[in-house]
């Protein structure tokens, strides 16, 4: 066997992606390695950039509600909620208390679905596929609840500007409570597994340690930050919708390693279960929507911040008084946390990279937000909305 000798000065670069090593989403990473140890890292995003920020400028305030909901398939409700809360402030309209409570209810159900999804993927990356299958089986419970409540497994479309679309019936309430009871029991079991299983702990304990100062310096958000002791949760710091009437307790760990990130997310599930029961028991009476919502919105600017399952979602919305927004800026949590993976990976084994990456619960759709089609001759082309729509109509017409 001939050994390849690389002079010390030259870097050996291992490209990973664009097919993402942890989740089935695209992102391209280049890791410079010295043997097995990572010495430098860069990232290239944008493989699923859909130009949504620009798209919002060509659509009305109401159409945009449906557009932003499609920024992310996993935390779709959060995006619609952040947008709706912001636009309501600009329009000087406030959704009724019952609507706000139902918004929080759906947000917490979504959090459970997102955390369980992440938990399964993370278990899979650690090579613990049994845990992956169990957690995704259990996740179906929450998906069924969401479907029963909203009619959809994802993209629930629960919000309208000025309220929500649906009420919670007694039959739905019963289904939710039964599902939550089952999941609570399962979560106790999962928490026990991730803190005691010695094989699993070898992949998580002491790996990817982010100290408090580093977490702050890198601007990490969400459960990843809270696992490093950063006391930051928009639901607590700046309660929106009904979180002021149904306060949440912040879950913080100080170890900063992958294990702590598992513990934070699983413990947050218990908070979500508690909150869902509390909301269902104390759902305020009243309307679901405001009577009238203006088509044109007064000139102004607003900042809307919401705690998504992955961390803080930030919207800046600007109106110049027309039927369309002038600018909608979206900052999703993954973008903030991505920088942490790059700096964290330095000094770690290449084999730990998928786990480090999955530790932040990356979401590439959120990150990228454009429709690019690769043509068969290898070229690239962007389709206009009209062309995409026509393609859809023709496709289904020919199918029948």
């Amino acid at each position: 066997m001939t050994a390849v000798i690389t002079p010390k000065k030259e870097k050996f670069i291992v490209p990973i992606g664009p097919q993402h090593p942890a989740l089935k989403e695209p992102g391209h990473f280049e890791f410079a390695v010295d043997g097995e140890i990572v010495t430098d890292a860069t990232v290239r995003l944008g493989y699923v950039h859909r130009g949504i920020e620009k798209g919002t400028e060509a659509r009305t305030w109401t159409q945009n509600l449906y557009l932003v909901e499609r920024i992310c398939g996993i935390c779709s409700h959060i995006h619609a909620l952040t947008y709706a809360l912001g636009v309501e402030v600009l329009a000087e309209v406030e959704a009724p208390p019952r609507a706000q409570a139902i918004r929080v209810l759906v947000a917490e159900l979504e959090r459970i679905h997102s955390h369980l999804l992440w938990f399964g993927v993370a278990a899979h990356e650690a090579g613990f596929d049994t845990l992956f299958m169990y957690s995704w089986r259990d996740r179906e419970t929450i998906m069924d609840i969401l479907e029963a409540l909203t009619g959809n497994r994802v993209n629930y479309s629960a919000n309208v500007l000025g309220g929500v679309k649906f009420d919670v019936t007694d039959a739905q309430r019963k289904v939710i409570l039964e599902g939550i009871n089952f999941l609570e029991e399962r979560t106790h079991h999962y928490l026990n597994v991730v803190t005691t299983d010695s094989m699993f702990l070898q992949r998580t304990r002491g790996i990817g340690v982010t100290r408090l100062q580093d977490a702050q310096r890198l601007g990490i958000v969400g459960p990843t930050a809270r696992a490093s002791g950063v006391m930051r949760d928009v639901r607590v710091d700046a309660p929106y919708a009904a979180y002021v009437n149904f306060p949440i307790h912040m879950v913080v760990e100080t170890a900063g390693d992958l294990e702590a990130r598992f513990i934070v997310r699983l413990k947050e599930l218990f908070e979500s279960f508690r909150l869902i029961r509390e909301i269902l028991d104390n759902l305020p009476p009243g309307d679901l929507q405001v009577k009238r919502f203006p088509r044109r919105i007064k000139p102004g600017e607003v900042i809307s911040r919401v705690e998504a399952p992955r961390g803080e979602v930030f919207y800046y919305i600007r109106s110049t008084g027309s039927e369309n927004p002038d600018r909608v800026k979206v900052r999703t949590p993954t973008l903030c946390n991505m920088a942490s993976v790059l700096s964290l990976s330095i000094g770690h084994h290449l084999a730990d990279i998928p786990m480090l990456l999955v530790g932040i619960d990356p979401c590439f759709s959120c990150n990228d937000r454009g429709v690019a089609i690769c043509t068969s001759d290898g070229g690239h082309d962007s389709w206009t909305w009209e062309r995409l729509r026509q393609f859809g109509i023709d496709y289904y017409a020919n199918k029948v």
Partner: protein
Amino acid sequence: MLPAYESSVNDKAERALVDAEALLGMWAPFFNKPQPDTTTLAHGENPLIFPYAKRRIKLTGKGRPDGLDVSITADDLREAVQILIDADWGYLITITGLDLGPEEGAMEVLYHFAQGAAVVTLSVRIGRERETAVIPSICAIIPSASFFERELSEMLGITVRNTPNTDHLFLPDDWPAGVYPLRKEFMANTSTAEAKDS
């Protein structure tokens, strides 16, 4: 009467804003206000700052005494950011680039900092031309700002002086040079082929 929880969030946000006002005291005339008329500026000051109706950025969420907006010049930006960071006031949420359109002939870059429910926005007004759409990088102070600055330069064509990385972050490598999708001239339904021709 506010519920106890809401008023405690409120108090914290108000205290944070008072702290921020003290820290950024040297820009007090520009709190929630436009920069002065160009005619009142001393010689050599940035002539790009036009008089314009500065609005207050509202915040959502309970416990929200409205945030603090500070108009500053590009030259003062690094100093202001340094002051906030040294005092450990909050964290940088993101940087928003705003094209005010060819008629207004200006762009705005907003730096949003948050501490609890309080948000401080530093807004820098710059021109739209190659020579005037320039801001200094704050990566030396906040390394994680690099992604936001890359987004500014590829989406709006803003030159970020001394930023460590100017590669495309989101747009394809073969994206035509000089086409900036978040500028107002760029229409939402333009295909890449059309963009190349423009």
